Each structure stands twice: as C-alpha cells, then as structure tokens.
C-alpha cells in the first residue's frame, strides 16, 4: 500500500515551532521519519481555516526547502489552479522537480480558500465556471511543461550551442480564461511533468481529475474529527465510457484522518484495520493520511500508525533499494502509463 501524508505547518499553537531555521529543522525531522517509515510522498497543503492562526509557511517554498533535505520521498506541493498565472505555476513546479531530481508533484487546488476570491480580486463564478477555469489552468501548465523536448539541453562547448532551440516549442493558447504564447523558460523537468495530484470533493472534481490527474485524493479534510473514514466518499465513480480521461492509469489514495494522538478514541490498531478495509474495499491504491497539523501528529504516523498498518496486514511500500531511487512517477508505477501532455500541433507554433 502506498501512503502519502498531508502536512500543514501550524502556527504558534505548536510549542515545537520557533522562528526560522528551527522551524525548518523540525519539519525536516518529521519528514525524515516518514521517509524512513516507507511513506511514498508528503503533500504540503495550506490551512486556510478562518478563525485560527494561519500556518507558518505556504506549501511551495516549504517543499523547495524539503527537496534538499530528503532523498527518496515524493514532495507534493498544493498550489492554486485558479489564481495567479499558469506560466508562474509551471516554472515553480518544474523547478521543484529539478530540486528534487524527479520527486515533485502538484496537488491541484481547484477550489478557492475562504476569502481568496476577494483577496485576489478575481470573481470566479459558479462551480461549473470554477471547474472550467481550473481545468484550463492545468492544461496550460502541462503544455508548458512539455514545451521542451527531452534532450533540448545538450551543452556543446565545441559548437557553442548550450541548448537546441529547435527542440523548444512555444505553446500557443487562447481560450476562455487564459491566453499565452511562449515556451517555458525552465528546462524540461526530470519527470517530464511533475505528478499531478487532484483532491476531489465534488462530482465535477472527479470529471476534471479523470482527465488530468495521476493521483486522485477523494475527500480531503483538514480538521480532525472523530468520524470514521467513509468508504462511499473514498470511491469516485468511474467516468462514463467515451470520456476523454484515462482513468485506468490514475492512482487513488483516499484521504483518511489520523486518530487524534493520545486519546482513547485514537486506538491505532482499530484505525489501521479500518484503513486497510477502506483501501481494499474500494480498490484504492493507497491512502492519504491527514493529520491534525501538529508535529506530534506527524511524528505519530511514523512511530505508531505505520507499524499499526503493517501489523494489520497493510504495510507501506517495500523499502528496497529500487523503490528508494527513481522518480515519483516510477514509484507510483505510472512510468509509461501517463497520458502525454498534448504536444504542439502543426501550425500552432509561431
């Protein structure tokens, strides 16, 4: 079973947090334990819950710092597919893939956080309009990732060519929400494109994810409750035959809440059995463990919950030498299966 762990970095609530480098050291220690325990990826997410202190940091910069402090775990950063510019998103995540040598992923934020519409001054319209915007955003980003062919950077000191510009193709895009004409400025990343993770909450999300995602994460709650994971919500419907997606090569990692540490309700063995049944019963490929956002909660995954899953007959990825190397795509068993991002067609390049 493949496990990913969602982490947010809490504010002053956690006594483990000091300013600055001490914070990064603390996160590094927690993630290193997850890596050693066989967790496939961490998904760094924001916490935009109103009324509580905001998290100390945002996902993409924390992911960039973790890139140099980890060696095999996947590093997935949540980033908006509604606000900002697709060009910036593409270069940021391609850079993260370079920093991690092919272990990067993008958790697509296709819903606005509380207050984000007003903060960015971008009115989004209804759910259908939002979904259309997010889908177009992701499409532009994936096309930009593909604008450098493999082998476009082959520095030839004798001829004096650092790159082969004939292998770099501008993306020409003009549609309802975005337009753009140009190639990415960051070279093709080690995975070609970072792994696309899509948290799904609605039927519309499922349709979008089916077309673009490598990993779908149904039901992605951020606050701990005592409710057990729901099998129904963990199993998105398969898209109708004839839709554009290639659902078969998409991995499913339902989001499940971790038991609250050190409470009677948080019995690791019972929780592990429920997660095992959920994953097996829904035909999922793994699970996304959602913590309460504290460092204790993160630490407990490596020290208690992974051992409990192993005892319940649902061990994490084998920690052989092969699985510890290579790209996140390969670790997910997706190499060769993923939909290639759309290549520029004749007449499109200017």
């Amino acid at each position, binding site marked *: 079973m493949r496990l990913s762990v969602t982490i947010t970095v809490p*504010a*002053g609530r956690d006594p483990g947090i000091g*300013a*600055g*480098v*001490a*914070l*990064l050291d603390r996160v*590094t220690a927690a993630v290193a334990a997850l890596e050693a325990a066989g967790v496939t990826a961490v998904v760094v997410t*924001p916490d*935009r819950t109103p*009324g509580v*202190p*905001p*998290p*100390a*940091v*945002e996902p*993409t*910069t*924390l992911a*960039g*710092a973790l*890139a*140099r402090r980890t060696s095999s775990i996947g590093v997935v950063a949540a980033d908006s597919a509604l*606000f*900002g*510019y697709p*060009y*910036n998103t593409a*270069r*940021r995540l*391609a*850079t*993260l893939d370079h*920093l991690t040598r092919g272990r990067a992923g993008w958790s697509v934020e296709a819903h606005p*956080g509380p*207050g984000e519409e*007003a*903060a*960015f*001054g971008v009115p989004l319209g209804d759910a259908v309009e939002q979904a259309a915007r997010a889908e177009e955003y992701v499409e532009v980003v994936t096309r930009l990732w593909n*604008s450098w062919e493999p082998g476009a*950077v082959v*520095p030839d*000191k004798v001829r*004096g*060519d*650092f790159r082969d*510009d004939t292998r*770099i193709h501008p993306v020409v895009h003009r549609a309802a929400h*975005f*337009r*753009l*004409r*140009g*190639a990415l*400025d*960051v*070279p093709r990343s080690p995975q070609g494109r970072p792994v696309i993770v899509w948290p799904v909450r609605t039927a519309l999300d499922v349709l979008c994810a089916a077309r673009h995602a490598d990993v779908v994460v149904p039901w992605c709650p951020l606050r701990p409750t005592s409710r057990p994971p729901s099998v129904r919500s963990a199993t998105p419907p398969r898209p109708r035959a004839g839709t554009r997606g290639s659902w078969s090569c998409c991995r499913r990692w339902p989001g499940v809440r971790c038991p609250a540490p050190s409470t009677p309700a948080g019995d690791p063995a019972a929780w592990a059995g429920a997660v095992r049944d959920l994953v097996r019963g829904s035909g999922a490929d793994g699970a996304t463990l959602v913590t309460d956002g504290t460092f204790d909660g993160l630490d407990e995954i490596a020290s208690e919950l992974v051992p409990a899953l192993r005892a319940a007959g649902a061990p994490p990825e084998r920690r052989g030498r092969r699985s510890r190397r290579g790209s996140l795509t390969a670790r997910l068993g997706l190499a060769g299966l993923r939909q290639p991002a759309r290549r520029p067609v004749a007449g499109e390049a200017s």
Partner: protein
Amino acid sequence: MSGGFGPGPLMHLSLNLSEFGRHSGAWRHPLSDVGDAPSVDRYVQFARTAEEGLFDLVFVADTPVHTPGRTSVTGTRLDPLELLAAVAAETSRVGMVATVSTSYNDPVDVARRGASLDRLSGGRLAINYVASTGDGIARNFGLDAQLPHDQRYVRSNEFLEVVTGLWAGASDGTAPAAAVDHAGPHFTVRGALDVLRPAGGRPLVVQAGSSAEGRDLAARWADAIYAGGSSLPRAQEYYQDIKTRTAAYGRDPNGIKILLGIMPFIGSTAAEAQRLHDDLDAYHLEGADVIGHLSALLEHDLRAYDPEGPLPFADLPDVVVSSSVSMSTLFKRLAREEGWSIAETARRSYVGGLGNMQWVVTGTPRDVADEMQRWFEAGTADGFAIVAPILPQTIDVFVAEVVPELRRRGLVRSAYEGAGVRDTRRPRRVARRGPAGRLVTA
C-alpha cells in the same frame, strides 16, 4: 567624497548567483562542468562559499521568458523563490535576494510566498522588485505587449503598497491578521495574509534600475539598490542622487544601501587575469551575429550600414519600445563619446552582456581589493555586487584572497553580527517602513 552623503566604515558584499557565471562565455570555458545542467548543487555550493566569505547577500536574477539564441547564456533558468528555498535549507547566515517581476505576478501570491521563505530562512529573504522589459514576457502572461514604461512603474508602486500592507497586517500567531482594503488601477485586494508574518517583519526591499522612475521607486521603497556604473564620476553622481531622492521621501539616506556592480576577472598575475577575460570574450564571440544583436538592442537594422563607420545616430529611434532602455541608452552614449564604429559597439555590447552596465576590474586579488577600496572611499557605493564572470572560479578566489585582503584593511566584517540576520532585523517591528536589516545597521 563628492557630495554630502557617504558610506559607513564597512563595505557590504553581494554575489550574483548563476549556474556558470554571468559572462556568457563562461559555460564554454574548460573550467566549467556542464555535464548535469541544470545543477542545483552548483547554486548551493556558490551560496555556501559566499557565506564562508561573510557576504551579506546572494542574488538571483529573473526574466520569465525563454530567449532563443546564444546571446545570453549563464546557465538554465529556475524559479528564484523555489531555488532560494533550497539554498535556505543549506545555508544559515547569508541573506538571499529573489528577483520578482511586479508586472507578471500577483501581489497576494508574492506576499504569501515571500513571508513563507522569510520564515523558513530565519528572516534572511530580500526581494528585488523589477518591472521587467519586453513584449515576449508579456505574451507569457496573457498580454499582447507590455505596458508602457511609466505604467509598469505605476504598477510596481501599487504592487509594493499591497505586499507591504499585507505583511504589516499579518498575524504573529496570537492576534488575527488585519485585512488590506485596496482598490487601484492594477489590483483590487480585499483580504488578509493567510500565512504568519515574515520572521523579519518584512523581507528587505531591493531594486535595480537607472531610469528616473526606477530611481524614484528605489528612493521611496528600497533598503538596497543594485547600481551599475562604468565610470567613477558617474557612480558618484548616482550615489548622491539616490541618497538625495531618498531624503526627499522623508527617509534616512543611510536606510538605503547602494551596491555597485563589479565584474572582477581575477588571476594570480595580471597577465593570467587578462587571459581569463580574453578567453571568455573569445568563447562568447565565436560565431556570433553581433551586428544583429546591436540592431535588436537599438531597434534599428544596422546591417545595411558600413560596419566600420559610426552609428547612424540620426536614424536611430529616440526611445526603444521592447529592448532595454538602460542598455540602449548606454551604448548610444558610449559609441558617441568613445567614437566607436558600428562593429566595435556591436562587439562590446554583445561580449560583455550585463558586464557593460558594470565596472570591470581585471587583475590580481590585490588589484581588485585596491580598486574596491578606491571606489568605496570615493563615495560611489555602500558596498559591491560581485557579478562573477565565471563560477565557481570568481567566488572561490574572491573569498580565499580578496576578502582577507579587504579584512586586513578593515573594510569588511570579520564575523557575522549577532547570531544571524534575524538578530539584527528586529522581528517585531512592522512599521510601514519596516525594520532595518543587517545591511542597514552594520
């Protein structure tokens, strides 16, 4: 001293980080290993060396567009804030400057990421706000052409108002964040920052730019400014002008540090340094269409003219639209003053790249220290931006030999002050002008 304002006793140092060095011939030099480009390891290594040399800052430039051709090859492009997050993870003291385009970013997004990296690095982040030049960039961001020059600076001012407002109102982990309510020509922002306040109150504001609008923007906002100056009197004039403009905004002129670009070609003998310089120029020039390059810079086709004749000044457009105003103005002026032919102007504009905006020193470590001391004591700068022509050679030799020489002369620090940048950044102070940094207090 050429005027009323002058630097403090110690010079500040900044290193321009690039993959192979800022000279576009560097990657072809036998010293450069291009085997695994893009190499993040190289950037991290250079930043660590700068930290060993007790530099104030390492700097990452940015122009978010793919430029085909071989005019400017300094390595592969990476996103500055992401790259510096990796640098932050492997350094502990040196400040880091990320370049951010105000024309092609959203201020809410930059406020969020800037606050986050500042906190991750223990208050070591500075942001270099640039307006960005060129229609090619604009097309990556949904426009057919860039905004006019003055509008780009209106947007920069508004951008800075929003990001500093969001940082000033941000939560410190106990009190909730205060919202910004901003409606301007370029941005409508109603909301609060959704990450904690930056560790240092706000990341230092850095600028570059030599136009009148650029100077005013720096005088209003900047804690530090990257300056180019190819002659000592011009650098002195620039220094006084920036400090005067800063005072006119009601600010302490010492609150803006002017970092003058220097491109040092360093060798163990003067001849070896000259050979390095010549070799890099030759690698870059080999096979290049220099007249085509100058035509693009000046926005006028020069191929029809006699390359050995003077520039056709009367035919040239007064104001360039898409190329750099600073660079085109500089070369027209230099060609006129120095009597250069078209071919000579083209060769020089092509070969030096950014080096043309800088003051170039070629010599031994002692020669470089001598020149830096002379320019520093002549009141041209509060410190220097080392625009390394070739990396790691320039920074390795600079830290091993130039820094100790400057230290013997009492011109650079002998230890980082306090326990790190955050000790001198007064993290609780969030006045609109923000905290004074180590840059400001050293």
